[in-house]
């Protein structure tokens, strides 16, 4: 039995499944493949059962009948904002959902002001966080380089001090042992750089969380305006 779509339809279905896969992040690979296989099977039957028009029309109609990828993988129907947070099983998501529900829902415009203020604060925090991380990485690697030079050719610093006629490079208790100072500098600065890299890596979670908070906030603002500036009641 031929389990494949005709080429043009295959491309349309493959694009859809790619989008669907993007919504499955966080799910293990085996479960992802199972969801994709199930939806592909559904689309195949839907496509095969539709005899009108060319293959592109049939594929597009099958996708339209199925619905948006987000609706297909949504873990619950009619999720409230806070429940959407619980779905993600992340403290940040729950907090974000709760904030919007607590402030934006019952308080209307005033509550939205609080949410917007909180979002602005979060953005400032995020900028500060990444600036600190980058500073740690850059200064860590620069200091590591200095430490490395102090280990490989310690005389350079002593020579510079002599030429300058004053102590440009100070090694504290290790003034006469720049190699020891170099080793310590190398270790500490590499730790600093590693901390910076760790902050950058973990920053992606903060970024995702913040993006989620923004989406919730924007949805609330949008719903407020589509309701003709009436306060939003209920979540």
């Amino acid at each position, binding site marked *: *039995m031929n*389990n494949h779509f005709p080429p043009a339809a295959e491309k349309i279905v493959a694009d859809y499944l790619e989008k669907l896969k993007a919504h499955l992040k966080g799910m293990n690979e085996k479960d992802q493949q*199972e*969801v994709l*296989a*199930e*939806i*592909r*099977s*559904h689309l*195949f*039957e*839907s496509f*095969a059962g539709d005899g009108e028009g060319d293959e592109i029309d049939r594929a597009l109609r099958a996708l339209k*009948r*199925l*619905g*948006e990828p987000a*609706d*297909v*993988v*949504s*873990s*619950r*129907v*009619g999720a409230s904002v806070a429940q959407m947070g619980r779905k993600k099983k992340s403290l940040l998501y729950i907090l974000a959902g709760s904030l919007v529900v607590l402030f934006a829902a*019952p308080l209307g415009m005033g509550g939205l002001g609080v949410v917007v203020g909180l979002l602005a604060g979060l953005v400032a925090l995020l900028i500060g966080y990444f600036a600190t991380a980058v500073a740690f990485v850059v200064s860590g690697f620069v200091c590591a380089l200095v430490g490395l030079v102090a280990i490989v050719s310690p005389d350079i610093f002593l020579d510079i001090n002599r030429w300058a006629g004053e102590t440009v490079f100070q090694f504290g208790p290790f003034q006469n042992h720049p190699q020891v100072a170099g080793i310590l500098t190398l270790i500490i600065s590499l730790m600093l750089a590693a901390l910076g890299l760790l902050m950058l890596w973990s920053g992606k979670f903060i970024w995702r969380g913040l993006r989620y908070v923004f989406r919730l906030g924007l949805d609330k603002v949008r719903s407020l305006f*589509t*309701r*003709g500036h009436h306060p939003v009641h*209920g979540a």
Partner: protein
Amino acid sequence: MNKIMAEESDNKVTQLRKGILELAVMAALFQDRHYGYSLVRSLTAPGSVEIKEGTVYPILARLSREGLVRSDWVESSQGPPRKYYELTAAGRGAYESLQAEFRRLVRLVEGAAGDGKPQAAAGEKIQIRRKKDE
């Protein structure tokens, strides 16, 4: 203003359908085992309501997580393998009690629409969850 009211009405209909769709899925699986596409076909039979086909999958996933349905992949002679779902014993029990509750609610609504009096049988307790702010 009419547009706003129409949107509100659409939202209420959507919410109502979503709430009942899970019960409808369980009802279909109570009768027979189904794979996703056949389940959609049985739910959208002529004269029935229209739904986006994809909405059954989150429901099936949730029922599966709750242990109310189990699934098996079965080879098909007409295309790719199909994932069949059927209610577990717990699922059948859950469906029967939900269906009984649903019938009581329908009688309540139909009664309210008729003479304004709920039609629940004597001694029946109809529980309606109210929001705190109501």
